[in-house]
Structures are given as structure tokens and as C-alpha cells.
């Protein structure tokens, strides 16, 4: 992966370095590309890439087998300032911009290690706490989460409610100043290892619409009545779990934000979450493309490398075009969100399009690997 050379200085004057876009670079993952980033971002990306290569990649296979990543890698990530990047410094986060947070999301996909749920922890869970939490909640949770000592998860989905968030049944009943929580959640990323979970629960069954009766609660691991079910074996995206709440008594301080405003908070944060998914999907496409490009350039058949076959060249050219076009849109969304101007529908467009693309690219790239594409030991699988 080469770093693009700066334009040569003319007559001793500093020339503004041109940042090429991904289609013009040697590889889609080159450092020094994309106009939304600056040189400081490049330096950060170099270090993030180094972290993933040194601290994550060598252990990922054994974590996948175990169904969970190590506590250690979370603390190491915290030590090296990779968690809570977008959370303000005054709250105990790193205080970086959104683009820097995006770098961490992307670099994880570039090394093909979906195990550690860093992005959800940092730019979803920590964001909820720093945006809607009380001073006490922020002081209690954020510094520990930035350090990787407290791992966060958010529990919205239930066995009976996924897309239909208003169909949530988990219920928190007021009891004096406390709340009693009952219900179950499924497919909760980071759920198994989490130390704190933001639980979406109904607090007012008589509200005029379901949305007006939902609240968010911060539930600590180990709270009486809070059980973690088995680790779920899914197609990919390991580190998912079932959570059970049986008469869990929560103090007033566990309420995140205001009662019955939960749905409003969730809708507010969706653009960022969708953008996160879109960014990671696009980065995954870029990784798969380069992985496949490398493979076809050395795989020999019919007397030459398959990269010499016209049909393969066409396929790769089409894939690269789609990916670069997608990248242009996602980068535009990243820039908008960095300026806090990204709206919900644009974010949804990015998410839907990028994930569709990711599926297409994965399928095509797997096919380009031929039989080997079906082997788990090959990164493309």
C-alpha cells in the first residue's frame, strides 16, 4: 500500500498536496487518499492500522472459535486511544472528529476482523450516554468506556420485535423511585461481554402511541435478575447474545435521559448508526476487492494468471467502479455528518445501498476465488 507522494515543492514554496480519490490510487485502501481526510487523519490511520495488525489480526481466528474476543484487546484499544474517539474530551472521551472515528470503523473492516464491537461501543453506546446522560452517568461510565474497562451494548431488538421497534415488549414498571424491568432481548452485539447495557423498554403502556411510552435504561452487568443467555452462533458477526431481565430492580439513576422520550432519542441517533454501518460495509467492499485482486493476480489457470482473462478483468473493473461510486456517496455522507448536517433519509440511502453492494461484492469476489472461495481459511469466505 503506497502513500501518495506530495506534489514537488516549486521554488521553495510549499505546494498543497493533492489527495487523490480511491479509484486513482494504487489500492482502494491506500493511506493519503480521499479529500475528506487530512494529513493528521493519515497519521492516525497509520497507527490504527498498526494496532489492528499487531493486536487484533493474530488472535482473531482463536476469538472466532471461542465466540468472544479477549478483555485484553478492549483494554489495549482503550490504552491506545481507539475507543470513544467521537466522544467529547470534556465527557472523558478522546474528542476527535467524526472522520477520525470513521477511520477506526474502516480499519477494522480493512483487516477483516469483525469480532471486536468497538464501533458499536464507541459511536453508538457511548454517544447515547454522552448525549442524553446526566453528569453523574457520564462521569461514571464514559472514562471507563474510553479505557476499554467497561464494555457497552445496546439492547433494542427482541425475539418479537426487530424492524418494528414500537413492538418492543420489555417493560419497566415504576415502583416508588425505582423501576422493575422484565423482558428479553436478542442479537445484542457485545451483549456477551458487556458491562453496561442500554435497554429499550416500555414505560407507559397507556401512551397514545407506543413510541411515546418508551424509555432507555442503563443496566449494569451483575444486577440481580439480569441474565446473559447463550452466545449466538450466527452466519457471521459473532459476539452476539441473548439477554434476560427478570424483576430487575433499577434505581432512578439508571434511567437514561427523560422517561418516555426513549423513542425520540433512538430516532435522533439513527443517522449516525446507519452511517456507521454504511461506512463499514463500503470498507468491507474495498477490502474484498483488494483481496480478490491479489488472488487473481497470482492464481494460475489456462496457461496464465486468471487476471489475464478478459472476463475476470471486466468483472473486476465493474466491481471497482461500483465500489468507487459507492465510496464517493459514503464519503459525502461522512463529510455531512462531520458538519452535523446528515439527515435520516440520506443516511438510510447510504446504509441500504452500501450493504446491498457489500452482498453483491462478497458474492462476486467469492466466485472469483473459484473453489477456494468456499474454504473458511480463505479471507474472502
Amino acid at each position: 500500500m503506497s502513500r501518495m507522494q506530495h506534489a514537488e515543492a516549486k521554488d521553495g514554496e510549499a505546494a498543497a498536496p493533492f489527495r487523490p480519490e480511491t479509484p486513482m490510487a494504487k489500492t482502494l485502501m491506500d493511506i493519503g487518499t480521499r479529500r475528506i481526510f487530512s494529513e493528521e487523519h493519515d497519521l492516525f490511520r497509520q497507527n490504527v492500522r498498526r494496532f489492528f495488525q499487531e493486536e487484533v489480526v493474530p488472535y482473531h481466528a482463536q476469538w472466532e472459535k471461542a465466540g468472544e474476543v479477549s478483555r485484553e484487546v478492549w483494554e489495549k484499544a482503550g490504552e491506545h486511544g481507539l475507543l470513544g474517539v467521537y466522544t467529547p474530551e470534556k465527557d472523558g472521551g478522546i474528542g476527535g472528529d467524526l472522520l477520525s472515528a470513521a477511520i477506526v470503523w474502516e480499519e477494522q473492516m480493512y483487516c477483516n476482523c469483525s469480532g471486536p464491537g468497538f464501533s458499536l461501543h464507541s459511536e453508538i453506546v457511548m454517544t447515547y450516554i454522552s448525549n442524553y446522560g446526566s453528569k453523574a452517568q457520564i462521569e461514571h461510565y464514559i472514562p471507563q468506556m474510553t479505557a476499554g474497562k467497561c464494555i457497552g451494548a445496546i439492547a433494542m431488538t427482541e425475539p418479537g420485535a426487530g424492524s418494528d421497534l414500537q413492538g418492543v415488549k420489555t417493560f419497566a414498571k415504576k415502583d416508588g423511585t425505582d423501576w422493575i424491568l422484565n423482558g428479553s432481548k436478542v442479537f445484542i452485539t457485545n451483549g456477551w461481554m458487556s458491562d453496561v447495557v442500554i435497554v429499550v423498554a416500555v414505560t407507559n403502556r397507556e401512551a397514545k402511541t407506543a413510541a411515546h411510552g418508551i424509555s432507555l435504561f442503563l443496566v449494569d452487568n451483575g444486577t440481580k435478575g439480569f441474565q446473559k443467555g447463550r452466545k449466538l452462533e450466527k452466519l457471521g458477526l459473532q459476539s452476539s447474545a441473548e439477554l434476560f431481565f427478570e424483576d430487575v430492580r433499577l434505581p432512578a439513576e439508571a434511567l437514561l435521559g427523560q422517561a418516555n422520550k426513549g423513542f425520540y432519542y433512538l430516532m435522533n441517533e439513527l443517522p449516525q448508526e446507519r452511517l456507521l454501518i454504511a461506512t463499514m460495509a463500503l470498507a468491507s467492499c474495498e477490502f474484498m476487492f483488494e483481496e480478490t485482486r491479489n488472488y487473481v493476480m497470482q492464481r494460475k489457470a489456462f496457461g496464465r494468471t486468471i487476471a489475464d482473462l478478459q472476463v475476470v478483468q471486466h468483472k473486476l473493473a465493474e466491481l471497482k467502479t461500483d465500489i468507487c461510486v459507492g465510496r464517493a456517496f459514503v464519503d459525502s455522507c461522512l463529510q455531512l455528518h462531520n458538519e452535523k448536517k446528515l439527515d435520516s433519509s440520506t443516511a438510510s440511502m447510504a446504509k441500504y445501498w452500501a450493504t446491498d453492494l457489500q452482498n453483491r461484492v462478497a458474492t462476486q469476489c467469492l466466485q472469483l476465488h473459484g473453489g477456494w472461495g468456499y474454504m473458511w481459511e480463505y479471507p474472502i469466505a
Partner: protein
Amino acid sequence: MSGRVLVGVKRVIDYAVKIRVKPDHTGVVTDGVKHSMNPFCEIAVEEAVKLKEKKLIKEVVAVSCGPQQVQETIRTALAMGADRGIHVEVSGKDYETLGPLQVSKILAALAKKEQADLIILGKQAIDDDCNQTGQMTAALLDWPQGTFASEVTLDADKLKVVREIDGGLETIKIKLPAVVTADLRLNTPRYATLPNIMKAKKKKIANVKPADLGVDVSSRLEVLKVDEPPQRQAGVKVETVDDLVGKLKEAGRI
């Protein structure tokens, strides 16, 4: 004692790049090729920053000689914790022929100007493998030197240096001001965290020309030709020692 440490950092072709010789055989291809800080220079920066964190020294100044691009390398040093940088502007033909003798003259001049107590350099650069700059700098300043350092302990104005030598480890005690060159096992360079990268943006990099320091950077050496190493030939297996001796005589080796 100023408490000031000068660290030299060199911008070199990244260690992972596959080097290609230019078609005209005057050098290697550098255009569009990934460059980074020389790994031994990273270790030098790390050691200086560590000394500052232990409050044994007060200021770390990162120095690099070269064209505009070396500012990138200085910024990396700043992001690791150096306080300020000095960019000694050398470009074009002068940069192509810049070698240890000229750099050591520059460093010596800067050390005097900045009243440095200590100079830490990488033991050698991975592009030319010279392993001369540290030693030459010390000689020009008439300062003691602790080269191939695998451990450095500073106590007031005394430096204990454990050196990696062929026979094992040698421990020496030298007095400041001194020059130290870093070997591989001295430390593991830290990651530059985002807050430090952002802080580095505000740190100053001063620009200086070799002429301002009274240094003539013209080279006394001329590179005649650069070639790839010869292709490794396949070996030949022999049955007996006599055969081996016979073959060696045949090849004119003995």
C-alpha cells in the same frame, strides 16, 4: 545543563516496500513509493520522550534534513511526544548526495546552537545502512558516544549505556553532553494517539538552511552505478569433501 535533547529523524523508503532500481541505474525508484520514519529513528524518538516523561530532561527537539516531505516525518516525531521540530532544508541534487558527513556537520552545528545536552540518533538508516552519522557527530563535537544502545540510564549528567556488541553486551559510563545511537532492543516505539496527533499540529517546526549553520553540503562522493544484487544461483550438491575441494578449485575460489 539545558535539559535539551536533539533527536535526528530520517525519512526513508518504508521497510515493507519492494525496492526497484531505476532504469538508468543512478539510484532506486522513490517516486510514488511509500516512505516512513527510519525504524531506528522511531526508537530514538521514543527513548527521548521516555526521558522527558521521567522528568530527566526538559525538551525534545526533532530534526530532519531534506525537502518539504520530511516535515511529515518531523510531525510523526511531534505526535510521539517531541516538543518542537527543526527542518533543515536540503533539496534536489544536494538531497540526493546528502550523506552522514554532511548530516553530522549539520547536527553538530545545531547541537551547539540549541545548546543540546544529548543527541539521540538511530544506529543506522535502513536505506544506506551507513552507521556513521552518530559516530561522526560525536567526533565533530568532541563528545563521548554510546552507540548500539540497548539500554540507557541517565543520572544527572552521567549516562550509563549498555551497548550491543558482537561478543554480547558492554556497559559504559559517559558524561554529558554525549551522542547515543539507538539499537533495536532499546524500546518499543509508542503509537501516536489522536490527542497527540492533534496537539502535534500546534507544535512549531522551524526552517533552517545548511548555509545558515555554516555547513557545506556538497558531497565528496559520487555514485557511479546502482545495481540489483546478483541473482542467486542454484547450488550444486557434491558427494565427498574431495569433490568439494575440486569444485572450489575449479571455480577459482581456492
